[in-house]
Structures are given as C-alpha cells and as structure tokens.
C-alpha cells in the first residue's frame, strides 16, 4: 500500500477534518486506489514543460484582459446581513470558543 493509516490521520489533521476510525479505513483504501491510478502521470515526459498556472490569459484573452481595478474603498453596508448568518456573533464581531486562558 502506498498510503498508510498514519498518512490518512496526518492529512486529516492538516485538513482540520475529524474522521471516524471507519472513515480512516475507507479513505486509506480509496486514496490508495486513486493515487495508484494517478501514477500514470509518471509515464509523461514533462522535463521541458512549463506548469499551466493561468488558463486562457494568453493571446487575445491576455490582450483584452483589463487592468486590475483600483484598490479603493466602496461603500458596503452589509455588516448586519453578514453577521446575521454567523452561528454566534456579538456585533461587530464573530464569536468563537475562548482561545486565550486568562
């Protein structure tokens, strides 16, 4: 197996995901299978290839690409509406469990 149980647990920690022991088993098998398939990419000679970090911003699209907009403040009276979606808030803040012990 390419992927160990410890790998799955470590990645779940990096991703801030709580997994049940059964999920760890399932993902170990499935990630192993998927990454085994992905290994076919090693057949491709990429030694002289640049990574594709932009999708279509070359040629016509690049020429027509606008300047980035001015970084200026625009009025936004939405704090109330945004906070109304929060699981817990105390205007003008989001509330979270205590992180600093006094």
């Amino acid at each position, binding site marked *: 197996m390419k*992927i160990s149980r410890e*790998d*799955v647990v470590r*990645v*779940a920690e*990096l*991703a*801030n*995901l*709580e*997994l049940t022991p059964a*999920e760890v088993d*399932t*993902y170990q098998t*499935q*990630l192993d*299978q*998927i*990454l085994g*398939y*992905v*290994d*076919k*990419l*090693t*057949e*491709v000679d*990429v030694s002289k*290839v*640049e*990574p*594709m*970090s932009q*999708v*279509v*911003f070359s*040629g*016509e*699209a690049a020429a*027509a*690409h*606008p300047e*980035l*907009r001015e970084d200026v403040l625009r009025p936004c009276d*939405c704090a109330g*509406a*945004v906070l*109304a*979606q*929060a*699981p*817990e808030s105390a205007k003008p803040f*989001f509330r*979270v*469990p*205590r*992180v600093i012990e006094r």
Partner: protein
Amino acid sequence: MSASTRWTVPAIREALQTKKASAREIYSDFIGRIEKHNSQWNAFLTLSPDRGLAQADRIDAVIARGEQLPPLAGVPVAIKDVISTRGIRTTCASKMLEHYVPPYDATAVERLEKAGALFLGKANCDEFAMGGSNENSAYGPVRNPVAPDRVPGGSSGGSAAAVAADLAVVSLGTDTGGSIRQPGSYCGIPALMPTYGRVSRYGLVAFASSLDKIGPFATNVSDAAAVLSVIAGHDPNDSTSAAIPVPDYLATIAQSVEGLRIGVPEDYFGAGLDDEVKERVQSAIATLEKLGCRRIPLHMPHTDYAIATYYIIATAEASSNLARYDGVRYGLRVPEGTLSDMYRKTRGRGFGPEVKRRIMLGTYALSSGYYDAYYLRAQKVRSLVARDFADAFQKVDVIVTPTAPTPAFKLGEKSADPLQMYLADIYTVTGSLAGVPGISVPCGETKAGLPVGLQIFGRHFDEARVLQVARAYELAFGNAD
C-alpha cells in the same frame, strides 16, 4: 394553456406580446408543475415564489405599459444551488450550508433578473458540485426524467432534470470537469460549458477556481444561446472574467456550416466507449458531413492522462477553497470543545463522504514532500492537454466527440467505487483543463431509450461557432423546432 405546452424562449415572448398568457400565469403554471411533480425527481431543493412572482408582475407591468420586453422576459429558470441568490437559501446540497441565505446575488443571477427571467428556485446537485451522478447531495439523489431508475448525471443533475422534466424552461448549472455537459447528455438536452472566463463567477461558491464555469441548460440550442448572451461578459467583480466582446449568438446561430472543418480525435473512440454510444455519435458526425462539414481525423495524445491530471488539480484547489467552512462566519457550527475541536468536528460532520474524500486527496497532493510529484506534475501535464487542443485548432474549427462513454447508469451502480465514477468524466475533463468551450447536444438514444450526447468543443471564446454547429446538427437531426 395546457400542461403539456413545451415552452421555449421565443414561444413565451410571443405569448406575452400577443397577450395569450401573462408572465404571472406562466410562472404560476410552472410552480404548480413543480409542486405536483418534484417529489418524483427531487430536482429542486428550494422554491422562490415570492421573488419569482414579483419578477413576473414587473414583466406584466412592462407589457401593460407597451414597453420593449427584455430578452428573457417571462422565462422560468432554475438555478443550481451552488450559485448565490439574495434572500433565497443556497445550500450547495450540503448540510454545511443547510440554513445559509446569501446577502447578495451572483452576477449571472443578477443579469438573468435584469433580462426578465423568473426565478423558480434552486436546483439539487452533488454536494459542492462534486460528483457525476447527483447521488452526493445531502438532500437525496435526483432521478433521471427519461429513466427514473437511473442517475441524471452530475453534478448539475437537478438543473438538467428540471429542464428535461419540463419543470423549467432553462436553467443554470456549473461545469468543473463535465458537470453541465454530462448531465445534459444523460437527460437528453443541450448543455453548454462556456470558455473559462466568459461568464463571471462572482457569487458562485468556489470548488476548483481554475476550472469552474457557469453555463445554461435548455430544450434547444437556440435557447441556450439566448441565456449565454445574457450572462456572458466582463464583470469588474471577477478579475478572471475576460473583457472580450460578447457577440450576438442568436445572430450567427443559423448560419450554414458548409465547409467547416470538424476534427474527430481517434483517442475518444477507444476502449471503454459503449458500442451504442459510439454508433450514435458516428452517425451524428455523418449528419454533419451531409451538411457540408469536412471531417478531419485527429490524434490528441494526452487525452488518456486528463482524468489523473484533473483529479489532482481539482481536489487540490477544492481543499484550499473549502478551508473557509470552519463554523466561524456562516454555515454549520458544532459547538464542542476548543476552537480547534470546533473546526474539526464542524468539518467532519458538515461535509459528506465525497467532499471529505476530495479534501483529503487534495490536501495530500499539496502536502510537503508530495507537491512536486503530484500537483506540479499535474500542472505540467495540463499544459500538454491544452497544447493538444491548441494544435488541433490549427487544423479544425471544432472538435466532435462523445460527451460520455456510456448512457446514464443506474442509481447506486457506481457509488461504492469513486474511481469508476471519476472515469465517467473521461471525455469532458480534457476541455475543462484546456479552458475551451464545449456543448453536449442530444444525438439519439440507445435501444433501451437512453439519451446519447454529442460533444462539440470550440476555440477559446468561440462559443458562437460551437452553438452554430450544434444548432445545425439539432435541426438536421429533427430534434428541435
């Protein structure tokens, strides 16, 4: 107005102008159909009759004043539930956002409203648009209106089913690796993925930002073109939207296709392609040849690497984009333990199995020690897949292929095997990686009566050509008025 009326965009316009029906009547008729039939298909997650009726009344007021109607006046539309709608619940088919109500509209939604469309509600989909069968919705699968024991495809399964079941005239879906075209193929309706950057994604809940696109479903290619005309174009709120002029797609859609060069890549007709699908697609290509198109054989050598490339890049981007769901600002919170416990439990319980699988895969591919082997290598192979398309478009005007290797499969058939599910995207992810536009247009049925889709790719920002070829085929095949 009988329940069997199959409305189109121009038919609605004519009915409004001749006062055969009001926008309110048309809208109410569709809401009635949904209330009666949605439990059969599960295509809608939320209805928005308050906003829709207000929109209808505004159109009726425009008619009463004798003013010019906007381009989509009175057209009932379904919107995939990953696209933000002000005041209308937007769940992404996830428990994570079960009660989330966006405070703003996506630009595509705002443009539809301005064009006179009537919002029916939000369409079911795979959770966070991740899946190819709509079985990953936290609110139950959608059924295929053509064959109820089969999947409608995914991830935009509800958007496709709503139009196919005559519960909406047009709909918006999103396509990251095939999520518009594949359900269009499975449900037997035209489905268009525009060029990357053609349609603003402001307000689209992000899955894989270098791949996500918004596009339409319709019952005919001309209506899909009408929707694209409205939603396309630069948006200052999305710096990845291109400032390339949007042509009038309806003006060129009826032009002759005589003399166009259609590329047929042998790589899309090999092992894994269902015999009946192959036969239907080849017969569609023969129809295009009869219309005067010239068939050019192509070889696109990196086609076979597209799935592996896609599932590294898309999951890597997803793992980053979905980091925002942490129980702090909106959505689900599991209020247990420390802040760190809260993050982990919220995400562990709020996300479904496929979303967690992709976050895990993407996090692994980006993690220290694996980045070069997976993510960077995939980005390089992506360049080669894109080069295959660039080379092909030196020789041809469009590329035609099957949309999917098989017709719609049975509910549950692939849900235990994620890799088999991923392979259903084998012909669609190539164009997604290259950023080119593609449409799926119905090209007949298997003996069992299951729809087959013909996929047509075009050059970047050349949706006009894609729509023109699709429309010519549709009319020749006798699929549309």
